[in-house]
């Protein structure tokens, strides 16, 4: 024990050896406080929390420095759901004695879980609000609030008691009893709770007025526990496990078959569909690539054709420039014919002009030269060629004869004899197509000649 003035350790003497204060009364008071503390501790051990609170309060009223009593009082308040009251007692205890005080660890433990502490604090606030509502006769709101409070903080005895009182007022004795029984589990000898329960018993008994002279056997009210919003009703199941092993195996096999069927009909089609979609997508891509390739190919082919045509055109132009054909060739023939004519070789000059198309000559001068030479040489050349052809025809040299007859005709388109004998030579040479061509000339250009009948006959027959 320590001196209340200086804190020095006291001896058996009634005077403090340190400060000299008279501690006789203090010692007596301290002993009384401890006695009440012990009483409170005994009650707390058997869960008579209400009784423990009264004893401990008395203990600290006698000696406010009894930290054991304060700490225990805090614990009891905490167990009754009044966490803030508990914290107050521990803070005061810590202020009285800061060293080696379990109150510090109690405070730390409460404050370590801030979420839970906040929730508990809110339940206390809601309880106070509910009390206010009940005092203002707003009973429904009070009941709703209190239900939430006891759900979150079922140890808050005051809330349980207040809710029970409201249920008793509404004659919901079953629900009230449930709340009061919950309180008794926490605080075994709570006077208020016991009184309410007793009242409920009386009120329930009043409902049943039947009575005989013999003392009635106390009937246990087998009222089913009242339901609240948190209760879950589980229907009684009629399922019974099969005891036969064979049925179990059959069940397993059936389950496997059902599973296989599900996979086959549900999962496989989806998988196939996925694969088919992939295939179709790939096919579409390849088709697209092929189409674009074809388009490009067509385009290139067209370009090639255009270039080839241009090349041929350029080659033709080049040919003309180089004099290997075209108008240059004709001019060369006219020039050679002119040379032969100048050399007084009229037959050769005419022969040079046989295959020249005067309309194809590029210049008027060339055309004029052609006309001059042709006028001077063609007729005589035709006669000469016809004569040579007749000579060879008589010698039955039909191949050379036909050449002369053809030249003679070309030099003189009016020489029907040349045409006739050319046809005759082709017939002799067994060239019916050429023969028919020349017979046709007779039919078409020389219809009045004496050869026309024979010509027609040959043409019709071939």
């Amino acid at each position: 024990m320590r001196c209340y003035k200086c804190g020095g350790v006291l001896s058996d003497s009634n005077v403090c050896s340190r400060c000299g204060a008279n501690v006789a009364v203090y010692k007596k008071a301290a002993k009384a406080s401890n006695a009440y503390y012990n009483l409170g501790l005994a009650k707390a051990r058997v869960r008579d929390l209400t009784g423990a609170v009264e004893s401990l309060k008395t203990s600290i009223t006698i000696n406010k420095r009894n930290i054991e009593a304060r700490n225990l009082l805090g614990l009891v308040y905490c167990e009754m759901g009044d966490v803030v009251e508990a914290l107050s007692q521990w803070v005061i205890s810590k202020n009285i004695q800061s060293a080696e005080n379990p109150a510090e660890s109690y405070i730390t433990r409460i404050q370590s879980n801030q979420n839970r502490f906040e929730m508990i604090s809110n339940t206390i606030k809601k309880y106070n609000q509910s009390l206010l509502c009940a005092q203002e006769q707003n009973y429904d709101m009070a009941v709703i609030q209190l239900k939430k409070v006891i759900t979150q903080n079922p140890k808050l005895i005051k809330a349980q008691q207040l809710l029970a009182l409201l249920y008793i007022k509404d004659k919901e004795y079953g629900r009230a009893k449930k709340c009061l029984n919950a309180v008794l589990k926490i605080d075994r000898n709570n006077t208020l709770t016991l009184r309410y329960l007793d009242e409920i018993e009386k009120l329930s008994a009043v409902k049943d007025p039947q009575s005989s002279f013999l003392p009635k056997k106390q009937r246990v009210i087998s009222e089913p526990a009242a339901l609240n919003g948190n209760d879950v009703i589980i229907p009684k199941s009629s399922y019974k496990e099969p005891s036969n092993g064979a049925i179990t195996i059959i069940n397993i096999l059936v389950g496997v078959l059902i599973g296989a069927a599900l996979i086959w009909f549900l999962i496989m089609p989806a998988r196939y569909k996925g694969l088919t979609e992939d295939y179709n997508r790939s096919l579409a891509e390849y088709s697209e690539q092929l189409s674009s390739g074809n388009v490009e190919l067509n385009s290139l082919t067209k370009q090639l054709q255009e270039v080839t045509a241009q090349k041929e055109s350029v080659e033709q132009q080049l040919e003309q420039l180089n004099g290997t054909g075209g108008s240059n060739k004709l001019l060369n023939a006219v020039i050679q014919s002119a040379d032969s004519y100048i050399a007084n070789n009229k037959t050769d000059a005419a022969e040079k002009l046989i295959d020249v198309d005067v309309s194809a000559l590029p210049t008027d001068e060339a055309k004029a030269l052609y006309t001059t030479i042709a006028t001077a040489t063609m007729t005589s050349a035709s006669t000469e060629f016809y004569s040579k052809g007749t000579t060879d025809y008589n010698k039955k040299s039909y191949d050379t004869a036909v050449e002369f007859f053809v030249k003679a005709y070309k030099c003189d388109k009016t020489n029907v004899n040349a045409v006739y004998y050319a046809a005759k030579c082709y017939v002799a040479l067994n060239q019916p197509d050429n023969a028919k061509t020349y017979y046709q000339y007779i039919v078409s250009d020389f219809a009045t000649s004496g050869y026309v009948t024979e010509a027609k006959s040959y043409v019709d027959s071939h």
Partner: protein
Amino acid sequence: MINFDEEIKKFQPSLEVEEAEDAIYNNDVPDLTDLINKIVDDTAKDK
């Protein structure tokens, strides 16, 4: 018979967190020991 109105008056509000500080500060009331010592001191002074 329970009188609801009388019973409801017996219920006291719980201490809230905001009120805890004031409750702790106002807790420094003299206990029995202080009172008796005061009485003894007053008596000794009178003598």
